[in-house]
């Protein structure tokens, strides 16, 4: 496994390849934001416009990048005489490191974008961290560069990245075992389920989890992160400590990831690895 980990983090085909792909996607998202900035500015928009881009799109990009890079790494590793066991154990560690890096990268680009928007009298949303809102006329201001907020944002993004990774792992597992189309269909369905349940809380199994997370998010937002002495009367009593909230988000993310990883492990353990004939 040591050889595979070294290959994953040091070679061009591992982390670098992942970062190149994921970085390109993030750059694309950044350009879309700048384009939106131009459009909104030009229209003289003074209301609140919700755009849900960085978090979910960034997470999707991370998932796609993992699926592509992971598949290539598997083929190179097997060609290099690596057992499935070593690859799969290694991939568990590699995925978690990639997820952490991705979450940090999304947050950095988010902050940069926010700073640019601020220059034009607007800012990305800070109330929910998940839904980004552009405020042309905002009243409550928090310091986005506060380490507490940056870290919490990263944790929330990490959860989304891990959810995207679950779809990527299901795709990777089914691709080798059954076929690419089945893998794509299963991953797409899972992603769609997340989206629907997250956006509308409408899918049974995930409903409570996402509703609960959203509740924690608002509570921690209003009570701790966005606590502004000027708006004391609006503040609510925190039900969770900062660390508790972080712990819950990380646990849920890891829980979903572990379940998908287990399925991937079982699917890929004895699957033949084939390339192009």
């Amino acid at each position: 496994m040591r050889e595979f980990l070294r290959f994953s983090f040091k070679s061009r085909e591992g982390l670098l390849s992942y970062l190149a792909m994921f970085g390109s996607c993030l750059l694309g998202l950044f350009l879309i934001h700048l384009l939106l900035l131009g459009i909104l500015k030009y229209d003289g928009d003074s209301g609140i416009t919700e755009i849900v881009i960085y978090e979910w799109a960034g997470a999707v990009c991370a998932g796609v990048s993992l699926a592509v890079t992971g598949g290539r790494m598997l083929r190179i590793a097997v060609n290099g005489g690596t057992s499935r066991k070593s690859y799969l154990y290694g991939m568990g560690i590699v995925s978690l490191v990639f997820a952490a890096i991705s979450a940090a990268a999304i947050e950095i680009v988010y902050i940069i974008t926010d700073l640019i928007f601020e220059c034009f009298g607007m800012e990305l949303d800070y109330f929910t961290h998940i839904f980004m809102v552009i405020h042309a006329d905002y009243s409550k201001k928090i310091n986005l560069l506060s380490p507490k907020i940056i870290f919490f944002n990263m944790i929330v993004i990490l959860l989304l990245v891990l959810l995207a990774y679950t779809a990527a792992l299901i795709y990777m597992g089914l691709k080798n075992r059954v076929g690419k189309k089945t893998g794509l269909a299963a991953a797409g369905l899972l992603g769609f389920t997340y989206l629907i349940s997250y956006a509308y809380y409408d899918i049974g199994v995930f409903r409570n989890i996402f509703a609960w997370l959203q509740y924690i998010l608002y509570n921690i937002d209003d009570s701790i992160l966005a606590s502004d002495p000027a708006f004391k009367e609006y503040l609510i009593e925190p039900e969770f400590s900062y660390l508790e909230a972080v712990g819950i988000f990380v646990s849920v993310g890891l829980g979903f990831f572990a379940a998908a990883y287990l399925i991937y492990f079982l699917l890929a353990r004895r699957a033949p690895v084939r390339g192009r004939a």
Partner: protein
Amino acid sequence: MSKMEFDSICKDYRKKTALSGVSFTVAKGSIYGLLGRNGAGKTTLVNMAGNRDFPTSGKVKLDGEDVKENDRALRRIYCSGAEELIPTYMRVRDVLASMRYFYKDTDTDYALELCKKFRLEPAKKLSQLSTGYRIIAKDIFALASGVEFIFMDEPTLGLDPNHRELLYKCILERFSDTESAFVISTHQIDECAGLFERCLILKEGRLIADEDSDKLRRSAYIAEGKTADVDAFTSGKEVLNRTTVGTLCSACVKGEPAGVPDSIEISRPTLQQLLIALTGGGV
């Protein structure tokens, strides 16, 4: 001397049995020819050796250790399969660099020397290479891997005669330098015949021959003459294959020729002729 044992390997797919109880041993210091018709199970066997696919039953062992899911054993084997596992966006030199993470003894200098000999640009991506050059690149990776057991599946597919000659020379040179075991699966049988010390012949998933190349060739003879004469001569003998053209007939017969009449000409079959005879004729 290190050796790889294939012990009763079976591989069943849903509707087909690809390999059925295949057992043989590959020892370091020999070049083996893995021969057989299309669909005989050669590629499946190579995939088993490299842990790319798993047998339904049976074991592949290296010095007594099961190769399956065994990194230590697998790092002593290099499989250059017919299917491309290496992503084609990679440059030749990057593939060599990535190989070094897994095969510590990868000889990059030697690989670059081979690239020069074959006029292959290491800076090129595999996707930019022609079919022939892509195969050459795969052959170079195998030769430079520095492992003890090298499996090459169709190493000459799409190569021109000049490159094929050069490849055979390089394999022999590498073999004499490293004494690695080479198992070469190919359809260019007569061209490669000089390389093979031992031949493994597969027919419909079964191993029908595992013999020294010369001994195998001497195990049969070709009797040629008028059809009636050949038929009379071969009566009661084991005829592996029989071809008739007009009034003339050629029969590949198992065993040593004895009591040959003047009307019959006897010759030794080439390895290719013998393979055709053993694996179902020209059908």
